[in-house]
């Protein structure tokens, strides 16, 4: 009997679906710190993790949470933490450490309204740019934006698969609205869930270079305690893992590879969903909970004979540059809807070639209503 994949249909909370997704993905280490609206992920992990033989540990703060997740990942476990804006801010430095040491791990950020303590119980999409640029230095990141309880489950598994495949942190950027949403969740049979495991070294331990990549730019990963006696540092390092902090070539080569290993595989990672886009004059771009209002609005517009379509971003990072460019060449107008003051909007503007872009911001925790979006579609503003 599988205790980690609880196959069946449920009526449950987004945060709980996320935790179950992690367990189904093979996560066996969770470290966290209580924070609204992500606490339910930790609470569910505290109850469920021992049942699958994994470890739940409540750390002293979010900095310690992400640090211990890095340690557990290097010890060989799939590991995760969950937080919200203030905790995500605290994690930024060690997100950089995970990027630099190529530690596979998943960070769930159930987004609330900021800046600062802001609106703990209300939803937002204000951490999208922070997810990309929050830590210092140049780096690429992978982030999924679930729009339903089912996607909280599915995309948490995807986040684990990407983090394992590319040896990098992967984010689940959920909004509070999805985290606290209750709706149907279907957990499939174990054999229906595709899992990816990190690449492991096959060489003699004495020959092992911990940061020497294969053709795909990803180095195989040894675990602590296996006799490889390797070293990982946040300092600029060579392929042996040894610090080389003043050599410009070593630094440039390392940073470019860390970026390239994501960029080169962007097509493999990026996921978008399209609705009525084939003949659309107007394209709405949205993600997370907002994409559901946008889908309703587009359907309402079609009923009225307006050629509207939707581009739903399932991954927000890497950004689907090519998709947006292609759409901008085919439609007259693009409408970006986000629960912030314009974050993905900037990316759309960057990729846009021909279309007029309008933006519907939303602050305060409210979701765009389909009518608001419909009125923008009709309005032509």
């Amino acid at each position, binding site marked *: 009997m599988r205790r980690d994949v609880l196959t069946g249909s449920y009526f449950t909370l987004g945060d709980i679906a996320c935790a179950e997704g992690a367990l189904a993905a093979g996560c066996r280490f969770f470290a966290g710190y209580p924070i609204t609206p992500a606490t339910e992920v930790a609470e569910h992990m505290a109850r469920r993790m021992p049942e699958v033989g994994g470890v739940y540990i409540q750390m002293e703060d979010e900095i310690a949470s992400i640090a211990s997740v890095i340690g557990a990942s290097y010890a*060989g476990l799939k590991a995760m933490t969950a937080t919200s804006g203030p905790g995500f801010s605290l994690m930024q430095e060690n997100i950089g450490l995970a990027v630099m040491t190529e530690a596979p791990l998943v960070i769930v950020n159930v987004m609330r309204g900021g800046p600062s303590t802001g609106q703990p119980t209300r939803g937002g999409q204000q951490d999208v740019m922070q997810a990309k640029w929050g830590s210092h230095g140049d780096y690429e990141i992978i982030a999924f934006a679930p729009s339903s309880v089912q996607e909280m489950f599915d995309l948490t598994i995807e986040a684990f698969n990407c983090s394992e495949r590319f040896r990098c942190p992967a984010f689940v950027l959920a909004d509070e609205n999805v985290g606290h949403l209750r709706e149907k969740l279907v957990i499939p049979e174990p054999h229906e869930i595709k899992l990816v495991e990190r690449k492991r070294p096959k060489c003699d331990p004495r020959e092992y270079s911990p940061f020497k990549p294969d053709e795909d730019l990803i180095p195989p990963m040894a675990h602590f305690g296996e006799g490889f006696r390797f070293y990982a540092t946040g300092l600029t390092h060579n392929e042996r893992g040894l610090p080389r902090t003043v050599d410009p070539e070593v630094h440039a080569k390392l940073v470019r590879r860390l970026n390239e290993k994501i960029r080169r595989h962007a097509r493999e990672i990026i996921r978008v969903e399209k609705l009525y886009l084939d003949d659309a004059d107007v394209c709405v771009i949205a993600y997370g909970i907002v994409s559901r209002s946008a889908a309703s609005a587009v359907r309402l517009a079609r009923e009225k004979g307006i050629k509207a379509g939707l581009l739903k971003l399932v991954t927000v990072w890497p950004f689907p540059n090519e998709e947006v460019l292609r759409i901008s060449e085919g439609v007259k107008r693009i409408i970006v809807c986000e629960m912030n003051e314009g974050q993905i909007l900037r990316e759309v503007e960057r990729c846009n070639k021909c279309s007029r872009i309008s933006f519907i911001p939303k602050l305060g925790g409210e979701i765009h209503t389909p009518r608001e979006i419909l009125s923008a579609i009709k309005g032509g503003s």
Partner: protein
Amino acid sequence: MSQLVHPLEKFVRPGMESRIWCSGCSNGIVLNEFLRAVDELGLDTSKMVLVSGIGCAGRASGYVDMDGFHATHGRAIPVAVGIKVAKPELNVVVISGDGDLFSIGGNHFLHAARRNVGIKVICINNFNYGMTGGQAGPTTPMGAFLTTTPYGNIENPLNLVQLAAAVGATYVARWTAFHVGRIKNSIKKALMKKGFAFIEVVGICPEQYGRRQKMPRPMDMMMWFKKSSVISRELDPSKAEFTQERIVVGEFVDVERPEYTELIRGQINSIIEKLEKEGKATDVEI
């Protein structure tokens, strides 16, 4: 002709040609003592992980031929906790400095000791931030002159031994760089300890600390330690005085408490046993 090889050469990480430590720095003394302890205990070094943070002492994890992790500033302990909890069979050791472990990383020390996670923490206390050029830190003595205390330090230094004892470390010792042999014996004890163990080694920093306190030569600080240190024979942290005139050294705590990873495994085993007995996949409502 046979080649002369240093007895600890076997512990040096291949490819690490140079060390960053200054002449006269006592970090090498502490690292030597650590390696002698490992050698004398005959520990399997492939089952050891050395974790450190940022700073001079933090470079130790790179120099030794064991698994090593060099974390961000102050975060060696939570990384070590993650490793230990994920793989309790490993002997996880943190070697880092006073600023790293007790200023920026202070919170983590409190909680790892409180939880009694079976990691070993060796702090080389050199009274200042050496790598960044000699700034005052959490153990800088009152009145000391450093680049950020140009008129003399007006902050009270932490007593690391008393702090460690107060938050629940199961083994606590303090030595100075003068106490070679005793440092090693304490590290041996710590390495064999089940619970959280802490050793403070009061170190020599001639370049950044000593020369600003009229102790410019390495021997000046060594002579200060020799003259001022008094060995306590009692397991009593209240005796662990630390002043310019009197540095009480020795062992201050040596007790047993249930270790964290053993408690976790105990819970996991009983929960799984119950589920198996009842033939259930879960006891949790989804």
